[in-house]
């Protein structure tokens, strides 16, 4: 009798815990459905309607017309191109620079704590502020960048970095790299600090060249942290809006998919087209995430 009670009693406590667990997560689930699930479903629906921004209640189903219009629009394709170029180049530069900064911060030198704090400054600055700040530094006549480059003799006349269609996307990439490298560096630094010092000590005793140590030991051991940091940044860069919109507005030569979708939605009041563009961006990001996670899993198993 007492033995039977003893085995049953913990079970009921556990069951009660599970039941209360659902009560604990329920408010969060309701909130997520309200701010993510429902609006996303509505966006999918609007993408196959002729919805107008001024009155969303009269949307009519029109099939895939928005998508065919979208794929026929050269501005859409240039926004896709800009987004991919922006993502690829900024994430690549951020990874390389972030790795260099992380390696520096991982070694011992005086004032390391202060330097690590200083490196965090760009990350703490709101994107809108950093966009305005760099716009000022890029100023075509009085900008400090033009003045410095002329003073150093690199340029002989000022360049309109933001107005010139050949330089503006690169100017924006440079701002994003400046702003996001600290984040990358910190994630990689955390990865570096998990590599045990004994590995390096053994390599040093064996007299292995530091460059070889980096490629044969550091990089492979850092791979998991590197993969996570890169996917986070790729998915974040794909949806870029703030920095591009503040620096160049709806300029076609730099427009990203997010900027394109918002222009359709708000400026052209064409909620159908804007939602179609947003839906395609969502699909693109989901596909990249799935491919990446699957590849990382396969890589881990083999």
């Amino acid at each position, binding site marked *: 009798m007492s033995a039977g009670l003893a085995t049953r009693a913990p079970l009921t406590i556990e069951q009660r815990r599970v039941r209360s667990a659902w009560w604990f997560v329920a408010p969060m689930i309701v909130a997520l459905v309200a701010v993510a699930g429902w609006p996303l479903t509505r966006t999918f629906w609007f993408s196959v309607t002729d919805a107008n921004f001024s009155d969303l209640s009269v949307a009519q189903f029109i099939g895939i017309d928005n998508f065919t219009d979208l794929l026929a629009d050269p501005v859409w394709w240039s926004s896709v191109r800009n987004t991919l170029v922006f993502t690829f180049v900024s994430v690549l530069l951020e990874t390389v620079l972030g790795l260099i900064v992380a390696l520096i911060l991982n070694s011992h030198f005086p004032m390391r704590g202060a330097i690590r704090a200083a490196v965090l400054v760009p990350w703490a600055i709101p994107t809108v502020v950093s966009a305005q700040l760099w716009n000022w530094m890029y100023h075509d006549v*009085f900008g400090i960048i033009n003045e410095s480059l002329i003073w150093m003799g690199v340029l002989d006349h000022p360049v309109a970095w933001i107005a010139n269609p050949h330089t503006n996307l690169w100017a924006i990439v440079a701002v994003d790299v400046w702003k996001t490298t600290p984040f990358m560096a910190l994630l990689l630094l955390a990865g570096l600090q998990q590599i045990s010092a004994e590995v390096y000590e053994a390599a040093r005793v064996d007299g292995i060249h530091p460059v070889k140590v980096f490629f044969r030991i550091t990089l492979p051991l850092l791979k998991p942290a590197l993969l996570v940091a890169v996917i986070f940044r790729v998915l974040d860069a794909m949806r870029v809006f703030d920095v591009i919109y503040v620096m160049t507005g709806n300029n076609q030569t730099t427009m990203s998919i997010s900027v394109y979708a918002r222009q359709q*939605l708000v400026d052209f009041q064409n909620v159908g087209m804007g939602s179609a563009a947003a839906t395609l961006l969502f699909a693109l990001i989901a596909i990249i995430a799935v491919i990446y996670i699957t590849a990382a899993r396969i890589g881990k198993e083999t």
Partner: protein
Amino acid sequence: MIRRFCMQVVFAVLVAIVTLYAVLPFLWAVISSLKTGSALFAGPIIPAHPAWENYLSVFRQQDFGRSILNSLLVAISTVALSLSLALATAYALGRVNFRGRRLLLFTVLGVSMFPQIAVLSGMFELVTVLGLYNNPLAMIFSYLLFTLPFTVWVLTSFMREVPRELEEAALADGAGPLTILVKIFLPILMPSVATTGLLAFIAAWNEFLFALTFTLTPDQRTVPVAIALISGASAHELPWGNIMAASVIVTLPLIVLVLIFQRKIVAGLTAGAVKG
């Protein structure tokens, strides 16, 4: 010996370059904010007499104070709301083994990867239907989209690290789950909750796309929208001194906070990212 010395010099130069690269642009904003009129475009790099007019005119011409209050209201409410929802969730996800736990955790992670633009039209509809258009409440509501997944994820990973014994002792005393969460976990996790809250605060303080789309009149704007839309007499005469002053005002507190909580922030960020 000489080689070693050279290496150290190269290393020191590298450290200096990295530091200057990180810090100089913001310093330039501070310097520019102290210049007015022609001093902005010519004259010495560092002004001999710092001019504080920009800081005053930002508040006089743009009603920047109102924007700061809006931003504070939005960011603090968003943080409070998402922390309370996330703490309860993190307790369940981190301490109780129930069916569907992993699925829920991955759904939350998936939502954190949503591009904001993908919910924009649906969210706009929701905001207008609820009567929140051109009202800071619209931002408090919609910002849960990104603060909630983040806080849930980070707090869950912190919650898991709390030793089992503490909870078991309370369970043995017959304490209910809510008591355990508030009396046992909250005090232990207070530093982590503060860090997570700070990161969520920064995200809400900086948000631009929703704030731009869901507000109409200047008096409802948050700080990022106000700074992005500061304009002068014409597009070619942007009041750069004012823009830089406004930028410094909203950024300096953030930088100070980040520098103070530096170590904790790194722990929070890596808990959010690496443990996934």
